[in-house]
């Protein structure tokens, strides 16, 4: 049997239906953009007012927005396996012909799609606000260099990393809270590199940005294979490996 997008899609649809009726998930997903649009705006208008260290303020603004693809999917992906296990809904799913890759892709997409929508929407609002209210020097600084490219490229890649870390932790955890905490911690390392780029500590050319993105994409793909390999039906159902 080959990979079935119908089965992965069934998991994705179920997850989205479940989010829609879960106030906690909706609240968390709504709170993150509210927070991460406010802080960049403060930086933007601080740069307007002060008129110096413009690049640092813009760097900070854009860094805040790169936190979105790391934090938004962490909680839901950390819940994805251990949460179902706690609810007793995992075993009925594993009893079906679904392959682990299909299950994992369905779960990952359910975290990825809303994250991407939120992150790009927030970035769009930021760019619109900058165009309307910021000083032309600031606007041109935003579009100068690799800032926009880094945002567009690294948002899905960071989300991918955070999702696979979250699902990996979830597949190995026995407690939802511990999984969520570990997942957030595990998602942070790539942000350190991006912080150095955003704050111009490391100056990146377009070519280097693309190379870093390609590296992160390769890491994401490897992470997917690693998570698929560690997804063990027997351990998930019984809690032990025979």
């Amino acid at each position, binding site marked *: *049997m080959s990979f*079935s997008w*119908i*089965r992965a*899609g*069934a*998991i994705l*649809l*179920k997850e989205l*239906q*479940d989010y829609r*009726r*879960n106030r906690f998930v909706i609240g968390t997903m709504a709170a993150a953009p509210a927070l991460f649009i406010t802080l960049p705006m403060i930086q933007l208008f601080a740069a307007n007012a002060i008129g110096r260290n413009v690049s640092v303020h813009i760097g900070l603004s854009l860094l805040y927005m790169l936190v979105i693809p790391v934090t938004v999917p962490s909680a839901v992906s950390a819940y994805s396996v251990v949460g179902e296990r706690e*609810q*007793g*809904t*995992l*075993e*009925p*799913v*594993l*009893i*079906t*012909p*679904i*392959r682990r890759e299909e299950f994992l892709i369905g779960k990952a997409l359910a975290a990825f799609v809303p994250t991407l929508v939120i992150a790009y929407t927030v970035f769009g609002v930021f760019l619109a606000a900058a165009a309307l209210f910021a000083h032309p020097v600031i606007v041109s600084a935003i579009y100068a260099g690799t800032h926009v490219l880094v945002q567009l490229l690294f948002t899905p890649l960071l989300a991918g990393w955070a999702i696979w870390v979250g699902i990996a932790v979830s597949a190995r955890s026995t407690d939802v809270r511990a999984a969520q905490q570990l997942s957030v911690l595990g998602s942070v390392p790539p942000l350190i590199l991006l912080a150095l780029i955003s704050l111009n500590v490391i100056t990146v050319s377009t070519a280097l940005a693309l190379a870093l993105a390609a590296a992160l994409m390769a890491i994401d793909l490897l992470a997917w294979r690693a998570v698929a390999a560690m997804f063990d*039906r*027997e351990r998930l*159902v*019984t809690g*032990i*490996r*025979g």
Partner: protein
Amino acid sequence: MVDHALTVERLSKRFGERVAFDDVSFEVGYGEVFGFLGPNGAGKTTTVRTLGTLIAASSGTAIVAGIPLSEKNGPAIRSRISIMPESPGLYLRLTVMENLQCFAGLYRLDDCRGRIDRALRAVNLADRAGDQCGALSKGLRQRVALARALLNDPAVLFLDEPTSGLDPVASREVHELIGSLRERGVTIFLTTHRLEEAERLCHRVAILNTTLRLVGRPDELREQLFRRSLDVRLRAPLDDPKAVLGALPEVEGWEQTPSGYTLTVSAPDLAAPALARALVAAGADILSIAESHHSLEDVYLELIDEDVEAKSR
């Protein structure tokens, strides 16, 4: 060669040093309702999970719905069977219809809507499709789980303790549903520790206590385990029971009970008339003579007690 829904040969599962079940062999025919009985921790659920390819066997072989049991064949086997776990495991924020649509997708079923409608009708829930599962009673959730298990029209339907935790009314409803599936010829593998449930619903039963103790029809198991006997009730005890009962060639042994005597016999049909004549001749007032009836519970308890005694020795 007889075509079986399940053929299990010397199957074992160990978790490290712990033996979940050992050296289990049995066959289940198509259309048969097969009861799998045993105390808690006997290995019933682990056997079901092994046959359902959720966990790997440590040794032995099995053919499930015509497909050899192996990790490689897992998706193919799982597409031809269904397992209803002890806990319904429904998505409680989703409606009944949304739950079933999700699983219809996981089975990649054609005519998804038609299958869901048929499954809901089979469990008498056609009018509850729009209800949120979290708002349903435990009994109704169990029925939704059964509808979910019927979606793919399974060659073998595994029901793991389907009435666990249900009140008597809800249990009766589930029994009626299983009874109707039995009439439709669905092959059912029913694990339970409710003996009256097994006796009522199953063509054959197996008793598992880590190893398989017995397999057969409930009446066969009774005959295997208990010698046939007659219960005699008299108004008053016999003056000399040895002279009356011991003289009958049909009676192999006897013991006194509070209300009369229990006689071990090989052929109750021959022994009962001879016994009646002898008792009348001895001046006894006969209240009743009846063949002793041993329930499946007696069989079960006898076997489990043997195991407990064997372990304590």
